[in-house]
């Protein structure tokens, strides 16, 4: 980190001194001075230090070897002043050449430079809440860049939606501030503004399943630094995209000096963390008998058959689907630079098989960063990244099969008495009396997994070109043009033997989505000092972003055979094709002023005006101001006496940011196509589908932040504490309107959400001796989220979950006073044990045939009957707090990194468990049903076996998702320099690593980190059969030549 920071500051000094140089005068040459500037501690040369003669303006800077040279009209002796950021300024009296100057690092002044929006700032001057991801996290082994944020920074919660290779995560900074619009943070990758909209990776191909993470297209190995901007002072410069926080990713750049070649690679394997406890063959047979008995039918299995199944054991469908899957990653990088140019190029290859059959992810990435000082005043550069990724997702079932949305859940439901294979080793596609044949095929989920093609290919180009011109030492202008192109192709083929293809004799679908975004940013920067006490800088700019997208997909079914899969739609019967196009424009004016008095009092004012095409004609423009103040208390006289305290800083900020992630054109009315048949021919009709809302405007988040940074014990203990309050108003909500209008809802700016919380980052150097050190980093964040208003006098609504099994149960609600993602259902109260209880106690009104052995629910409103009004809050998916504890232990050449991550207080609606505890005649069930109520086993927990497949939301299925996990552990060994250089390398490190090694949780599903509906805000934390998480074991090597 320090190295790159120095280089950046070097560039700054270089430009500064060049402009000083430009004022060169024509003095007589009276003396020549050669000198060299080095670091007092390391003896390394200091590059770019400025050297000037006291009393006159003449100055030079040191070169790559720390050397400088003067020709001056002054005669010896004179005093030279040497300064460099991060070092104490030094005056040296010289009376001859050459001279060696040793500079002492200034721990206080050093205060890292931190990347902020549209620039960099000294950490000391910063007023906002900006946190860098620790280096240890950046070197973590992972498939996707968003995983690097996990447990790294307080206030950031990363939740993976499934364990599928390349799958998406949802990232929340300080809670979700929106109900229906996007809640993901804004990413700024090398100056390119990106909203991580996973829908950009979907062409809408039927059955394509879980979406692919757009961020997975960036190779984690290319990332140099990640900064997280959390409060309004830091994010308001991003205006309408700042409300959910900003994550700035900087990729690796070349440095002046030697050329480096490095290789980083690892290989490893992944395993399933756990399997679900399901009934075995004999247990299932007796359950089926009980179900049959409950509807007055004869038993299906005789006692002898059940005995026989006990010995034969049946078939384990889960084991057939899971495998030990390899993963590998290789990255080769070249970097370096000379006096005027710097470069970094890299190529990466990542290949991961999924732990479920038929799933994988592969990525090839190429990067080239180049920068050149064209002249003293002008420099330009280019950053380009290309990536190509291919993922194969889980085979999905037909859209209507919502109880088991994918082949994985189908196999979980598969009765254990049904064979997986025929005697000849082929898939069993007929011998299953518990399912209905479709075109003589009884689908086999293992066959579905193996043979369904569900492929997403993404090509992405991220490129930016910038030029920077320095008018004088104070004034710099920068123009940048960048592009982000995502081209997604999806291919789907369900062969005629699969669930999704059987009815139609094969089903193929292909689709393409091309989204391109062009961004032009023009900024001007002014930095100056008045006297010794006043530091002033200003930033102004105009930016314009234009995004357009096109989507097309087409499909066909009824193929003669499966030979051509999705590549010959013309051989089948076409289904209705689809195409769509959209464009959006965002224009912005931005400004920021920083003022610092004596380095003690710092003020930041920023503002952005955004004009977005997504909003109503009456409110195209939004204005987002912020103010931040920080006070370096340690510099006050009264603080000088504080023993052992090295730094105290107070930060305060307030400001407004916005959210424009609502999708395109929603302010306009729209006509949709429908159809009707006349004379047997389908004809297209046009019907209004949306009312116009010319007043549609920005969601507005007002945020207040108070922070305290404290360091003590020689900076071995560093504490960062933040408290914040975020109030979001004008929330975009599809407000229900009277249905008699012909419309169900209208998108309006009604409603509010508030988030408040605290964040703690504690970095400690526990042990520091020669050859042995131990550093720890503790990150803690607690956020409280509350819906404050949803408009139109309504205080509660039930989001429409896109799954009919869940839709009917309405498991989640949005209710004023409760957090988003609140689960809503009945409280259960044991089991009806006697007919008298059944006769006299409240029952669910729609279950007319309640019997002894059925579950009893609490009549919370005491009206004698269980209706929807008896439902209560069963908790929220939002955790009370999340925390992580990361450690780095170094013993001579060995280093050990391990990181624990935990989450407390969140819930998950385990819909899969609910479905598995429903006894039906045709599907397997949870081992919980072994304890089912029977007259002989009067369970008060598990109801009797029935054939009625009703799922009811009750607290049993809203499970505690708290967990503690040993997320990563890595043991590395760095070869001694001598040995490394003997074999022609600069550095060699080998390591072994494990991910998700241990997880402690009460959650009974595959994994407590799950969200079937991915980034959605309205119904997060539902598990209806997601791809399970895996344990990963790796061994790797990093070599620098």
């Amino acid at each position: 980190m320090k190295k790159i920071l120095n280089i950046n500051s070097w560039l700054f000094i270089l430009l500064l001194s060049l402009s000083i140089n430009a004022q060169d005068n024509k003095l007589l040459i009276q003396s020549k001075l050669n000198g060299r500037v080095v670091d007092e501690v390391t003896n390394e040369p200091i590059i770019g230090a400025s050297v000037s003669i006291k009393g006159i303006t003449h100055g030079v800077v040191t070169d790559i070897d720390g050397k400088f040279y003067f020709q001056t009209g002054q005669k010896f002796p004179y005093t030279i002043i040497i300064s460099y950021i991060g070092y104490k300024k030094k005056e040296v009296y010289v009376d001859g050449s050459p001279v060696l100057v040793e500079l002492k690092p200034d721990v206080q002044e050093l205060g890292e430079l931190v990347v902020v929006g549209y620039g960099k700032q000294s950490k000391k001057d910063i007023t906002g809440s900006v946190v860098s991801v620790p280096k240890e996290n950046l070197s973590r082994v992972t498939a996707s860049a968003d995983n690097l944020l996990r447990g790294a920074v307080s206030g950031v919660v990363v939740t993976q939606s499934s364990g599928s290779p390349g799958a998406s995560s949802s990232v929340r900074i300080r809670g979700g501030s929106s109900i229906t619009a996007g809640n993901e943070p804004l990413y700024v990758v090398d100056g390119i503004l990106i909203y991580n909209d996973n829908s950009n990776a979907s062409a809408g191909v039927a059955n394509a399943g879980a979406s692919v993470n757009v961020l997975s297209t960036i190779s984690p190995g290319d990332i140099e630094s990640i900064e997280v901007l959390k409060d309004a002072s830091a994010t308001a410069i991003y205006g309408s995209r700042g409300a959910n926080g900003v994550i700035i990713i900087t990729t690796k750049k070349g440095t002046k000096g030697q050329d480096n070649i490095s290789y980083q690679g690892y290989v490893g394997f992944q395993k399933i963390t756990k399997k679900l406890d399901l009934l075995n063959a004999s247990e299932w047979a007796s359950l089926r008998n009980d179900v049959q008995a409950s509807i007055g039918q004869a038993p299906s299995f005789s006692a002898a058959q059940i005995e026989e199944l006990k010995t034969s054991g049946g078939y384990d469908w889960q084991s057939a689907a899971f495998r030990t899957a390899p993963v590998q990653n290789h990255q080769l990088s070249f970097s370096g630079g000379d006096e005027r140019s710097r470069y970094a190029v890299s190529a990466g290859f990542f290949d991961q098989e999924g732990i479920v059959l038929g799933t994988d992810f592969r990525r090839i990435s190429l990067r080239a960063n180049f920068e050149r000082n064209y002249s003293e005043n002008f420099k330009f550069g280019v950053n380009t990244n290309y990536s190509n990724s291919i993922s194969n997702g889980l085979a999905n079932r037909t859209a209507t099969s919502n109880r088991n949305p994918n082949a994985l859940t189908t196999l979980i439901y598969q009765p254990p008495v049904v064979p997986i294979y025929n005697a000849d080793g082929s898939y069993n596609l007929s011998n299953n009396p518990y399912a209905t044949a479709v075109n003589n095929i009884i689908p086999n989920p293992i066959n579905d997994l193996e043979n369904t093609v569900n492929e997403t290919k993404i090509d992405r180009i991220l490129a930016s070109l910038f030029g920077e011109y320095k008018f004088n030492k104070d004034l710099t202008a920068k123009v940048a043009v960048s592009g982000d192109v995502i081209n997604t192709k999806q291919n789907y083929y369900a062969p005629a033997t699969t669930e999704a293809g059987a009815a139609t004799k094969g089903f193929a679908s292909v689709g393409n989505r091309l989204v391109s975004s062009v961004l032009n940013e023009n900024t001007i920067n002014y930095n100056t000092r008045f006297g010794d006490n006043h530091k002033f800088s200003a930033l102004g700019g105009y930016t314009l972003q234009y995004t357009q997208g096109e989507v097309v997909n087409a499909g066909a079914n009824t193929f003669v055979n499966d030979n051509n899969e999705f590549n010959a739609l013309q051989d089948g019967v076409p289904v209705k094709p689809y195409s769509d196009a959209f464009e959006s424009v965002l224009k912005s004016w931005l400004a920021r002023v920083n003022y610092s008095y004596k380095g003690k009092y710092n003020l930041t004012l920023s503002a952005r005006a955004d004009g977005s095409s997504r909003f109503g004609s009456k409110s195209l423009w939004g204005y987002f101001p912020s103010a931040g103040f920080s006070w370096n208390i340690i510099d006050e006289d009264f603080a000088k006496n504080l023993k052992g305290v090295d730094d105290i800083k107070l930060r305060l900020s307030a400001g407004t940011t916005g959210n424009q992630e609502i999708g395109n054109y929603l302010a306009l009315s729209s006509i949709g196509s429908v159809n009707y048949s006349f004379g047997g021919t389908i004809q297209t009709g046009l019907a209004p589908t949306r009312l116009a809302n010319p007043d549609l405007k920005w969601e507005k988040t007002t945020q207040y932040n108070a922070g305290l940074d404290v360091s003590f014990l020689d900076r071995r203990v560093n504490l960062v504490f933040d408290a914040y309050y975020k109030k979001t108003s004008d929330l975009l909500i599809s407000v229900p309107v009277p249905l008699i209008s012909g419309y169900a809802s209208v998108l309006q700016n009604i409603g509010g959400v508030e988030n408040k919380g605290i964040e703690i980052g504690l970095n400690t150097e526990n042990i520091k001796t020669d050859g042995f050190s131990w550093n720890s980093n503790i990150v803690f964040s607690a956020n409280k989220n509350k819906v404050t208003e949803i408009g139109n006098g309504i205080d509660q609504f039930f989001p429409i979950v896109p799954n009919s099994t869940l839709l009917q149960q309405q498991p989640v609600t949005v209710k004023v006073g409760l957090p988003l993602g609140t689960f809503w259902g009945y409280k259960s109260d044991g089991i009806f044990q006697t007919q008298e209880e059944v006769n006299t106690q409240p029952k669910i009104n729609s279950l007319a045939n309640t019997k002894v052995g059925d579950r009893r629910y609490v009549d919370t409103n005491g009206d004698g009957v269980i209706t929807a009004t008896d439902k209560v809050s069963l908790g929220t998916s939002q955790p009370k707090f999340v925390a992580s504890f990361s450690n780095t232990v170094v013993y001579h050449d060995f280093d050990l990194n391990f990181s624990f991550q935990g989450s407390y207080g969140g819930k998950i609606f385990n819909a899969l468990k609910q479905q598995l505890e429903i006894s039906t005649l045709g599907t397997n069930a949870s081992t919980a049903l072994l304890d089912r109520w029977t007259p002989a086993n009067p369970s008060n927990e598990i109801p009797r076996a029935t054939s009625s497949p009703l799922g009811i939301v009750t607290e049993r299925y809203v499970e505690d998702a708290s967990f503690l996990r040993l997320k990563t552990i890595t043991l590395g060994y760095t070869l001694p320099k001598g040995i490394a250089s003997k074999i022609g390398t600069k550095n060699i490190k080998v390591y072994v690593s494990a991910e998700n090694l241990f997880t402690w949780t009460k959650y009974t599903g595959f994994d407590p980190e799950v969200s079937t509906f991915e980034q959605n805000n309205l119904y997060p934390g539902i598990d209806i059969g997601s791809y399970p998480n895996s344990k990963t074991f790796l061994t790797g090597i990093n070599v620098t030549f």
Partner: protein
Amino acid sequence: MKKIFIVFILSAALFVSCTELEVTPTSFTTTENLFKTQDDAVASVTAVYASLTLDPGEQTLFGRNLYFLTDMASDYAAAGVSATNPQVRALSSLTHDATSDRVQVAWRQIYAGINRANVAIDNIPKVSGNEVIKTRLINEAKFIRGLLYFQAVRLWGGVPIVLHEPTSIAVESLKSRRATVDEVYTQIIKDLTDAESLPATYGSADLGRATSGAAKSILVKVYLTRKDWPNTILKAREVINGGYGYALFENFADAFERTKENGKEHIFSAQFEPNQAGNGASGNNFPATSFTGFTATEPADIISDVALFYDIYAAGDTRRDASYMKQLFNPATGTLYTFPKPLFKKYIDFSNLNARGNTGVNFPIIRYADVLLSLAEAINESDGATLEAHELVNQIRRRAFAKPISTPDVTVDLVGRTQVQLREAIREERKKEFVQEGQRWFDLVRWGTLVSEVKKVTAKNSVSERNNLFPIPQSERNIDPIGLPQNDGY
């Protein structure tokens, strides 16, 4: 050096200059841009019809959703094991309340169709085009609007009357108070009377559109429901003698045969087509929910009581085996499969037993048989059990027993019945004739026998007088509690 930078700036500026904040969508039309040509007018009316058969993501109005109210909440139909929606089961046991999602969806679908009709009626006058066609299109929209209000007024009583498209998104402006039952009927009669001037027939490409005969036939049902016997008789005679060419199919089962769609007995049907939504989904859900395949698992839609509704057909009555199937030939095994209970049969497409979610069997909204029985009922109620009333019922019976329809036949004809007896006979015929046709609940309510008849089915003994109307959806009352008072008992 500055020059280089200025060139850089200029090229960047050129790159991005031509952009405006107000973007025009290219993949859809805004409402303001529709209604320019006659084709737009035609498409807007096609959308009005589509409200009967299409609602992506939901069961469609005539494809099954109304069935929950008009059949499952009556006596003969019930929710089978495969019906997983508790709200459907609640309707089956008549324990539903105002939060019933099925009731809400029906309300929404009906008013969505009314709005589409309003949009067409408001805007078609401004398009350029043939005035005759424009008038016809407006009258078609009025026919559907009248038909939908007729469903609404019977299901909920006085409902809000909305006759124009909304012009603002302000919630207050979108509200409307419940009108009286009489006001709603006045509007229905007005719309349907206008629709009487529709063409009597269409060319083959337009088969399925509303005709003047359809308008008169729905008016027959309107007057019958209002117990306006003279007007019922008047309109029914216009349908029968108006030269429309309506007649009963000789074979009862033909009324549900795909190849006989829009035949002589079909006065107006909801037109279903396979693959109607274009992506494998379909408007007609009955085939999938009435038949789950060759398995003992009960489908979602089943007969409630075999003794009360299946065993009642006399020997030789072809309607039993056209309405129910106890056995079905399984082409996969080559054997006859016997179901534990008879299953509903009318909408099964036997040409495509596998793809049950995607069939094209039409739903008859009004058949000629209904006009005949309505006329018989009106005559019997106003003039007593006349010979004509007997003859009308007998035509239905002769066809049911596969006898020549116009030839008196002593083996099946009813003769010399009293008014009370004939009334009972008409009711029995309607019960056997209109299985799964969205008639039963309306009939029982009209006759005032809902509670007594439904109570005969044990699982439905929660029925009470409140069930003569459905509740106003709670979600609707949340928005407008004052303008939409709840029906009694909910």
